[in-house]
C-alpha cells in the first residue's frame, strides 16, 4: 500500500485538540449530595450487569477520534502498490542489456516478460496516462516521452529489444525520475530489469519507484566472455586465438571450436574452471587470410553446438589483425629518391615487382602476401588500367591516361605557383624553391590538384571508390624535391594517409549493440546486411551515417551505393557479467530493496471505501449523541 498524499496525514494533528476539548468538556460538575453510598451501590449494580458501561463515557471520544483518523487517511489517498492514479504519469525504464535476452525453460526471454508486464501495467492504468519509455542501454534512450496514444505506446513496447552490453540503469532511472518529479502526485517510475549486474544502485528518494525483476528463472548458461587473435611473428597468415569462457555449471564436456568459412580449423577442450566459473583457452590457426573471419563457438563432446539460456554469448567473430609494418609494392623502375625515402622508414616493408608480373600473377609469394595484406602500390612509369584498392602512388606516368586521368604534353621547367597546404598530404611541405625539369601536366576534372604550376597540375589526387591515387606528373629524380626536407615529409604523409585508408577499409570490431558509423558522401545510401540476413538502410548526412545495429552477434556487411565500398563490422558479446544470468544487483529504495514478481496491478484507490467508513462512523456518532439518556 502507498499513500499518494502522505502530507494529508497532518490532519491527525486534530486528535490533540479533540482530546483536549474532551478533557475540558468533561470537566465534571461537582455536586454535593447528602450521601454517595446509594450512588455507589447503583454504579456497582450497573457495572455488574453491564461491564462495558465503563467505556460509555469514552464512546463519543473514540468515535470522533476514529472519524478524524479515517478522514486523514482518506485525504492521504491510500492506494494499492503499483497503482497509477488518474492524471498521473508513468515512466518505464527497461533494462535492454544483453542478459535480458536470456530465455527461461519455456523459451520466453526476459525482455519478452518485460514487454508483457509493461502492457499489463498500461492496461491497469487509467486512460490518457502519460507514458514515458526509456531504454536503459549503453546510454539512456527515451523512446517515448509523455505519450498518451495507446497505439504508439503499444508499438513502442513491441519494439523493445536487447540493445547493448551493460545497461545504464542508474542513469536511466535518474532521467525517468526527473520526468516524474514534474508530474502530478501518484506518478511513478517502474523499472523492469533482471538485476544482472554487480552493483548497488540508489533509487531516488523523492520519487515513487517500483522495480520488477523479470528474471523469473535462471537457467544454465555458457558463454565466450573474451577473445582476441594475434598474428604469429614471421608467419604471414598464422594466428593465435586466446579466449575466456564462462560456464554457470563448470562442465566437463565443453569445447571451444574455431572455424573459417564454415570449416573447423581448431578446437580446445575447456577445463580448469576457476572460482568465478571462467576458464581460458588458446587455439592456433594456421591460415587466416587478411579478409577472412574466424568464428568461435561452444560445443559439446559430440560437436553439437550448445543451447542454453543465452544465445548471444555462444559464439564470437574475429578478424585477423593487421601486421604492424605497412607493405609497399614498388612496381616498375622506382626513382632512387623514392626508393631511398621509403626504405629508411622502419614501418614499411618494401616489395618489388613489375606490372607484367602482376598482370600474369607471376609475382613471388611475398609480393602476393603483401598485396593480400593491403599493400600500397607505387607505380613508376606504367600503371594498370584501374587503380588498386586502398592508397596508391603513380610517379611520372608514361601513358596518355592513368586510371582515366589524362596526361598532357611534356613541358620543360614549369614553375610551381601554388600548392594546397590544407591537404594532409602536403602538411608541413613547402615547395617554394622546388624546381622541376620536365612534367606532363595532369588534366581533367577527375583529379583534385594538390600542386599547381604555370603549366598545369604537377601533383594531383585521384579519388575512386576503392581508394585514392596520388599522381606525380614528373620524374622526382629529375627535380630538386628529393634534396629538400619536404620530400621526406611528403612521403611520410602519403604513407600515413595510406595507413588511414587501409584501416578504414578493414573490419571494425565493437561490442554488441554498438552504433555503426560509416563515412560516406552526403546523401549517399548505406546498406547494412545483418548476420540474420535482414537489411538496414541509412542515408549519410554531413559525411557520415550513424546506424543503430540490432543486437546480433556476427558480421555486418556494409555497402555504400555511391562508391560501392564494402566493409564489415563485427559485433560480439564479450561480458562475463552478462553471461552470468543470476540476479545480483541491488536497487536500494526509500524503504528496502524493492523486488516483485511480474504481476497484474489491481486498480482502484482506497479513499472511497475509507470515506464510506468515515460516514458510517459519523452516523454512529450522531446516533450515540442523540440516544435517549445522552448528555445534554
Amino acid at each position, binding site marked *: 500500500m502507498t499513500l499518494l498524499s502522505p502530507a494529508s496525514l497532518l490532519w491527525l494533528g486534530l486528535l490533540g485538540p479533540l482530546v483536549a476539548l474532551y478533557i475540558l468538556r468533561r470537566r465534571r460538575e461537582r455536586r454535593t449530595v447528602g450521601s454517595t*453510598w446509594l450512588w455507589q451501590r447503583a454504579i456497582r449494580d450497573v457495572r455488574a450487569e453491564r461491564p462495558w458501561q465503563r467505556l*460509555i463515557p469514552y464512546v463519543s471520544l473514540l468515535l470522533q477520534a476514529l472519524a478524524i483518523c479515517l478522514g486523514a487517511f482518506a485525504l492521504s489517498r491510500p492506494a494499492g502498490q503499483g497503482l497509477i492514479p488518474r492524471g498521473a504519469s508513468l515512466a518505464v525504464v527497461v533494462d535492454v542489456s544483453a542478459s535480458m535476452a536470456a530465455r527461461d525453460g519455456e523459451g520466453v526471454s526476459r525482455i519478452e516478460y518485460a514487454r508483457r508486464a509493461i502492457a499489463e501495467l498500461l492496461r491497469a492504468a487509467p486512460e490518457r496516462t502519460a507514458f514515458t519509455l526509456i531504454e536503459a542501454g549503453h546510454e539512456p534512450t527515451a523512446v517515448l516521452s509523455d505519450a498518451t496514444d495507446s497505439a504508439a505506446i503499444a508499438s513502442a513496447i513491441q519494439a523493445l529489444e536487447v540493445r547493448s552490453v551493460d545497461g545504464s540503469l542508474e542513469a536511466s532511472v535518474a532521467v525517468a525520475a526527473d520526468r516524474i518529479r514534474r508530474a502530478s502526485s501518484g506518478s511513478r517510475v517502474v523499472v523492469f530489469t533482471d538485476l544482472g549486474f554487480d552493483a548497488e544502485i540508489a533509487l531516488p528518494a523523492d520519487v515513487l519507484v517500483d522495480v520488477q525483476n523479470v528474471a523469473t528463472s535462471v537457467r544454465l548458461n555458457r558463454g565466450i566472455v573474451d577473445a582476441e587473435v594475434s598474428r604469429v611473428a614471421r608467419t604471414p597468415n598464422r594466428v593465435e586465438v586466446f579466449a575466456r569462457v564462462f560456464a554457470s555449471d563448470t562442465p566437463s564436456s565443453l569445447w571451444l571450436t574455431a572455424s573459417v568459412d564454415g570449416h573447423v580449423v581448431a578446437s580446445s577442450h575447456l577445463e580448469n574452471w576457476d572460482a568465478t566459473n571462467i576458464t581460458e583457452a588458446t587455439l592456433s590457426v594456421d591460415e587466416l587470410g587478411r579478409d577472412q573471419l574466424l568464428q568461435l563457438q561452444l560445443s559439446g563432446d559430440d560437436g553439437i553446438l550448445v543451447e542454453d539460456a543465452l544465445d548471444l554469448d555462444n559464439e564470437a567473430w574475429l578478424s585477423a589483425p593487421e601486421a604492424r609494418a605497412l607493405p609497399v609494392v614498388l612496381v616498375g623502375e622506382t626513382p632512387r629518391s623514392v626508393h631511398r625515402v621509403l626504405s629508411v622508414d622502419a614501418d614499411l616493408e618494401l616489395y618489388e615487382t613489375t606490372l607484367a608480373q602482376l598482370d600474369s600473377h607471376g609475382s613471388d609469394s611475398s609480393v602476393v602476401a603483401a598485396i593480400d595484406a593491403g599493400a600500397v602500390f607505387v607505380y613508376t612509369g606504367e600503371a594498370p588500367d584501374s587503380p588498386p584498392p586502398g592508397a596508391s602512388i603513380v610517379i611520372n606516368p608514361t601513358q596518355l591516361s592513368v586510371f582515366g586521368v589524362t596526361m598532357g604534353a611534356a613541358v620543360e621547367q614549369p614553375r610551381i605557383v601554388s600548392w594546397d597546404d590544407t591537404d594532409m598530404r602536403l602538411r608541413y611541405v613547402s615547395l617554394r624553391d622546388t624546381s622541376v625539369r620536365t612534367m606532363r601536366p595532369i588534366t581533367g576534372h577527375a583529379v583534385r590538384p594538390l600542386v599547381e604550376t604555370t603549366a598545369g597540375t604537377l601533383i594531383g589526387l585521384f579519388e575512386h571508390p576503392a581508394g585514392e591515387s596520388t599522381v606525380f606528373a614528373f620524374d622526382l629524380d629529375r627535380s630538386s624535391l628529393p634534396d629538400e626536407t619536404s620530400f621526406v615529409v611528403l612521403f611520410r604523409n602519403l604513407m600515413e594517409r595510406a595507413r588511414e585508408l587501409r584501416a578504414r577499409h578493414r573490419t571494425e570490431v565493437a561490442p554488441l549493440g554498438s552504433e555503426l558509423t560509416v563515412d560516406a558522401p552526403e546523401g549517399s545510401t548505406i546498406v547494412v546486411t545483418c548476420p540474420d540476413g535482414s537489411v538496414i538502410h541509412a542515408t549519410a548526412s554531413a559525411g557520415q551515417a550513424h546506424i543503430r545495429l540490432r543486437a546480433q552477434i556476427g558480421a555486418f556487411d556494409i555497402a555504400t551505393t555511391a562508391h560501392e565500398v564494402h566493409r564489415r563490422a563485427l559485433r560480439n558479446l564479450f561480458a562475463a557479467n552478462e553471461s552470468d544470468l543470476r540476479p545480483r544487483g541491488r536497487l536500494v529504495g526509500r524503504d528496502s530493496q524493492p523486488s516483485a514478481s511480474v504481476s497484474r496491478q489491481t486498480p482502484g484507490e482506497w479513499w472511497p471505501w475509507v470515506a464510506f467508513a468515515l460516514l458510517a462512523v459519523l452516523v454512529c456518532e450522531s446516533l450515540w449523541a442523540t440516544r435517549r439518556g445522552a448528555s445534554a
Partner: protein
Amino acid sequence: MSLLDPAFLKQLGRIRLAARRRFASSAAGNRRSLRHGSSAEFAEHRPYFEGDDVRRIDWNAFARLEEFVIRLFVAETDINLYVLLDRSASLGVASAARSKFDVARQIAAALGYVALSGSERVGVFPVGEELAAPFAPTRGHKRIASLLRYLDALTADGGGDLRSSIETFLARQPRPGLVAIVSDFLDASDFIGGCDRLLATKHEPLLFHVLDHEEMFPQVGEDVTLVDSETGDVVEVTLDATTVAAYRASLDRHLEEISAYAKKRGLYYGRILTHESIDEVVLRYLRGGR
C-alpha cells in the same frame, strides 16, 4: 425560613389546632396517651422483644400464631416526647429553597409545639457524629419560644452516626416515651439496630424521613462528580438513564427496607420531600396514622 417567622408560627398554630380538635373529640377531658402502660384496657399486641416482661406474653395468641407476642394496654400517663434531630451535613444539602435540615427542624418544631401546648414533656437531642447539647426535656407552653429559638440556632454540619447517637441518648436513661427520629436516614450506620434498642428500652420510635426532591428524583444529565457532604467521598458518575434508574432502584430498596421495618415493628414512618409541606406528615401521625 426561620422558625420564628410569623408565617411558620401561624402554620404551627393550625397544626396544633388540628391535632387538638382531634384529641378533644376522641376523649372527654383526657388525652389518650400514646404510651402503652399497665391498665385494664387492652390496646394491642406486639412482638416479644428480649427484656420484655414474660408475664405479658399472650399464650392464646402464641397458640394461634405460634409466635411470641405481648399484650399492650392503654396507660393514662404523661407523654415524654424526645426528638432526635439529625443535624449531620447530609441534611444541609438543598436543591430547592428549603434544605432537608429546614424541614427537619420544622417537623421537630411542630411536634414540640403540639406537645408543649398539651403540657407534654419535650426534649430535643441534635444527633450527628455525637449527641450535641440538647434542649432539655421541659413542659409548658411558655417553653415554646425557647424551643423555637433553640431549633432555629441549630446548623447542619459534620458527619452522622444515628446508632451511636441513640446509644448516647439511652445512656442518659430517659424515661420511656416517644422518640421522634427526624433524619434523612442516609447514615450508613445501623440505625435499625438503634431503633431496636429504643424499643427494647420501652421507647416508641417515630420515624420522620426527610428527603430532598433531587435525591428522590435525580435528573438524567451530564457527567458529574458527586461529593459526599459528610465524608467527602467522590464518585464520578454519568447520569445516563441506566445509572439513574439503578440509583432509583437502590433508593427504593432503601426506602422499602425502612418502611418494612417500621411496619413490622408497628412504628410510625412518615416520609416528606423538601418541596412538600410538613402539615400532612405531622398531622398524619398526630391523628393516629401509621
